């Protein structure tokens, strides 16, 4: 049963996607709790112009340059979103929509500019945006692992601060913490987690990896530490299963299958999670109704 694990290429892909699932699940928790999960969508879309500009400047498809370009563009996108919200009457969701669509449109323009004017073929850049897990090389996985390790370490080191600005920003300010600095660091973590994943699963599906595992974990627990661990576990399991199904059973693109696995985990959580699950809520509701009926009947007897 496990002979498929012998394939070295598959091993790398499996390792890469699993690490990615764990990291994005953990870091996504803060985005979801701050109700800014759609910012991750904007960041993922903003990676396209970043990657293209990096390619135009360096003229090289080396992953590390593309990643740096994507991080810078993603960070500028988050900054623009916040700036528009602070300096106009536009709400956050509109601001996200404006930034997302314009950045991506600009990216498409750059992509066509590269393919028309620079002789180099831009097919690799296309893949970078739409995701191509099967093409993960050992070097890519090494970069993903190192970046993930750095991101998770920073997350653990600043856990207290992040927790504070997520749940009670005013208290954090009162304690003398610089809200902006910590928030920027958190945004940088989110941008980093998204950028290392885009190449594997693509722009839209990366958003799913940031949002779905934390949302599922949130249904199971009230504690942030437990939520982080659960979200990481969900993300990791979904990536493992998704990669397994896609490369062996179904032979289709890996990204969508991983996301469908995550969606399945979320759906099961929605049904069966304790206290917040639909099954539990219905059960409590039935129990209440029954006890209410009993009370009513006893009351009637008393009246008679």
């Amino acid at each position, binding site marked *: 049963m496990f002979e498929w694990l012998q394939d070295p290429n598959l091993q790398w892909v499996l390792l890469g996607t699993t690490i990615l699932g764990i990291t994005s699940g953990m870091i996504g928790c803060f985005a979801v709790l701050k109700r800014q999960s759609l910012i991750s969508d904007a960041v993922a879309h903003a990676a396209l112009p970043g990657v293209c500009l990096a390619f135009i400047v360096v003229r090289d498809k080396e992953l590390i340059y593309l990643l740096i370009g994507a991080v810078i563009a993603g960070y500028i996108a988050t900054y623009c979103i916040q700036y528009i919200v602070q300096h106009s009457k536009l709400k956050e969701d509109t*601001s996200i929509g404006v930034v997302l669509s314009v950045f991506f*449109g600009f990216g498409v323009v*750059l*992509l066509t*500019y590269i393919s028309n004017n620079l002789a180099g073929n831009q097919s690799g850049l296309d893949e970078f945006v739409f995701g191509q897990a099967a093409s993960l090389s050992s070097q890519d996985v090494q970069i993903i692992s190192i970046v993930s390790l750095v991101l998770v370490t920073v997350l653990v080191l600043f856990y207290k601060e992040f927790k504070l600005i997520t749940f009670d920003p005013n208290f954090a300010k009162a304690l003398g913490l610089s809200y902006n600095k910590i928030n920027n660091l958190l945004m940088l973590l989110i941008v980093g987690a998204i950028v290392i994943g885009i190449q594997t699963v693509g722009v839209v599906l990366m958003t799913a990896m940031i*949002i779905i595992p934390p*949302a599922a974990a949130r249904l199971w627990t009230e504690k942030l530490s437990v939520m982080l661990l659960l979200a990481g576990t969900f993300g990791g399991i979904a990536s493992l299963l998704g990669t397994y199904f896609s490369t062996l059973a179904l032979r289709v*693109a890996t990204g969508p299958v991983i996301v469908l696995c995550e969606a399945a985990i979320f759906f099961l959580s929605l049904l069966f999670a304790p206290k917040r699950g639909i099954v539990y809520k219905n059960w409590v509701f039935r129990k209440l109704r029954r006890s209410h009926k009993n009370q009513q009947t006893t009351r009637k007897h008393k009246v008679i």
Partner: protein
Amino acid sequence: MSYEMWIILTGSLVGVTCGTIGCLLIIRKMAMLSDGISHTVLLGIVLAYLISQSLSSIYMLIGALIIGMLTAFLVQFLYNRGIHTDASIGIVFTSLFALGVFLVSIYARQVHLDIDHVLMGEITFVPWNRLTLFGVDLGPQAVWMLGTVLVINTVILIIFYEPIKISSFDPVLATALGINVVFIHYLLMGMVSLSIVASFESVGSILVVTMLIVPGATAYLMTKRLSTMIAVSAMVGILGSVVGYAIAYWFDVSIAGAMSVALGLIFAIVFILQLIIKKMYQRSHRGKIHVT
């Protein structure tokens, strides 16, 4: 009409259709739902193709309409289960999109759907895909489709203008006045899905999102009246497509992308002007005590 005129006309039609609907989405704080629907429409198109086995526009319109409504319904369902709007939009649209991409990659050999094509759009080919009726050449198919949707939207908007306005700004008052708020919500979602699908084939999903959100956002910065906002938004949509075509022509780049960039520039200019006016207003009122 010349080739360029048809493309600009198509872009402008998308601008007007999406611009008007976009205003309603923005004042209802549902801008990102349009981004979600514009992605899930892919699933509708794929399913419509798999069931009907034809690439006819009408099946795609129906499939996408159903999936668009389903997206809105699922987001509302999750929201009622205690998940915040942003997360529920994120969960629903990515999952349905993943299902769409999954189906495309399974039936890749049969479906003539290219994801790149769907996302980037090929407005360039619009003038060649013509509608002929009784042997008479009536012009590009996309123009007719967009025109029809625009007429439908305008009629609905004129009939339901007051209920839509009241339920957007004050749902509680609307309910008290006997307006069916849920009906209005899904009516609007239906209009959004229709507009997205009609625009989708010609300009790709990314320009649809831009056309839905950016003109409305620009107009929102300029006025406080809903009727003015809708008119301004439609005009910004047209301006964006004309300027965008010019940019695309000069730099030889993607037309849909250039139209997005043009709209972004218009938004940026209005945003900066708005900042300057606010600053000037503050300066002129500094130190003055208002006695009322």
